[in-house]
């Protein structure tokens, strides 16, 4: 469980997060949604320790990040898996080397043990035959799956995904969404996803945090988002006619 308490973050004169509090629960897919500039990425990067909030605390299962020393922070970071928006695969390494990277860096596993684990996770993300390919030789959807494999290879307790569906076709997006949800439940990890994709909200949003202008404007589940009368959420989530009709149908009980 990740607990965010009254987090504020500014860049120069501009205050991006204005006191956000929430709880991201273990074993659930927690989504952060909101318009561009609402503070989603800053919140995610604050959770990752890339940005330091000026006010407030972020605690990982009771461990308050700002109170940890450097060794404890490094230890905590080995428990974190991250899927970046552009995948951020190391382009000089093959798919297998990318996935093996956290194991080579942070464990004392032997080469056969690393190979066994890499084979296992690559099979888990349905990329059994891509071991020796370079990131530039595979599609965007495959790159995302490699990024997920790299994020989970070291059995993380926390998984963060920044726009995991951006640039992907609808079929691949659903595949990636389902994969993240399955992995979250299978390994009982705390997953936080920053997304613009309303399909993801409807499919896998077990806990949804809606940010507006750096403030928490709403939070709830995907079932609750159909019923909410919060104007900001309705205007954002149901901005397309398709989703308006989905909502109407849902409210009518179809």
């Amino acid at each position, binding site marked *: 469980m990740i607990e965010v308490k009254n987090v504020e973050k500014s860049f120069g004169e501009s205050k991006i997060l204005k006191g956000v509090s929430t709880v991201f629960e273990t074993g659930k897919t927690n989504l952060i949604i909101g318009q561009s500039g609402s503070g989603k990425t800053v919140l995610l990067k604050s959770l990752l320790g890339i940005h330091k909030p000026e006010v407030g605390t972020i605690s990982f299962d009771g461990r308050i990040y700002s109170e940890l020393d*450097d060794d404890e922070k*490094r230890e905590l970071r080995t428990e974190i898996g991250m899927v970046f928006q552009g995948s*951020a695969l*190391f382009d000089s390494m093959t798919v297998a080397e990318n996935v093996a*990277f*956290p194991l*080579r*860096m*942070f464990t004392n596993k032997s080469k056969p043990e690393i190979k066994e684990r890499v084979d296992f996770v690559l099979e888990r993300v349905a990329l059994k035959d891509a071991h020796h390919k370079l990131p530039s030789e595979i599609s965007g959807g495959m790159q995302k799956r490699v990024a997920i494999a790299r994020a989970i290879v070291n059995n993380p307790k926390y998984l963060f995904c920044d726009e995991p569906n951006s640039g992907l076709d609808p079929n691949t997006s659903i595949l990636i969404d389902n994969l993240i949800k399955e992995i979250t439940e299978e390994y009982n990890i705390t997953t936080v996803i920053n997304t613009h994709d309303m399909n993801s909200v409807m499919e896998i949003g077990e806990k949804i945090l809606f940010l507006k202008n750096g403030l928490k404007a709403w939070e709830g589940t995907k079932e609750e988002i159909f019923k909410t009368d919060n104007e900001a959420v309705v205007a954002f989530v149901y901005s397309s006619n398709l989703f308006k009709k989905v909502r109407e149908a849902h409210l009518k009980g179809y």
Partner: protein
Amino acid sequence: MLKEIFNKQTKWSVMRNLIFKEIDDLIIDSLGIVAFISFFVGGVVSIQTALNLTNPLIPKYLIGFATRQSVILEFAPTFISVIMAGKMGSFITSSIGTMRVTEQIDALEVMGVNSLNYLVFPKIIALLFYPFVIGISMFLGVLGGWIAGVYGGFTSSAEFINGAQMQFIPFHIVYAFIKTIIFALLLATIPSFHGYYMKGGALEVGKASTVSFVWTSVSIILFNYILTQLLLGS
């Protein structure tokens, strides 16, 4: 930045492979162009010296002497380093800059890797082999001068070799290699700095490479002046 490069060392088994890769990318891959340039510039120095010795009273062995002094004191350590600021420096800035743009550096940091140590330290270690490149440049420069001088009909082999051995001061070699080691550190750190701290996208990677080349070259020329004054001028 410098402190962070030597902090929180990356696991040795990983670092060892990185160092070998950097030696291959930065040192081995530079040998061809360094050999080519050194050989022909050495030849040109020899020919130019011969053509400027118009007074029949000036002995021909000065061609060998001038070629040796030019190549060992300045051409090999300094001008090859300026050329390497373009080749190695652009490579370092663009490869680290691309990693910054594509969030690969963020990925390293999120995993708990000291990205400065992981990316820059192996380059510094690899460039400790840079004097080896300059040694080859010195040899090929003088060899090029000898071939151009002798086979171009400007001097005899004996006269060139006599000149090349004349008034040899071993400290000049020490001076050249001291300069080379300082230039190697500049070649590793300045382009890394410009790549690591760049902001923006692909266009900015190109701009960072250009700025890095300019600053590395300016630093090499300035340090060349300061070191020459300190080591030979006093």
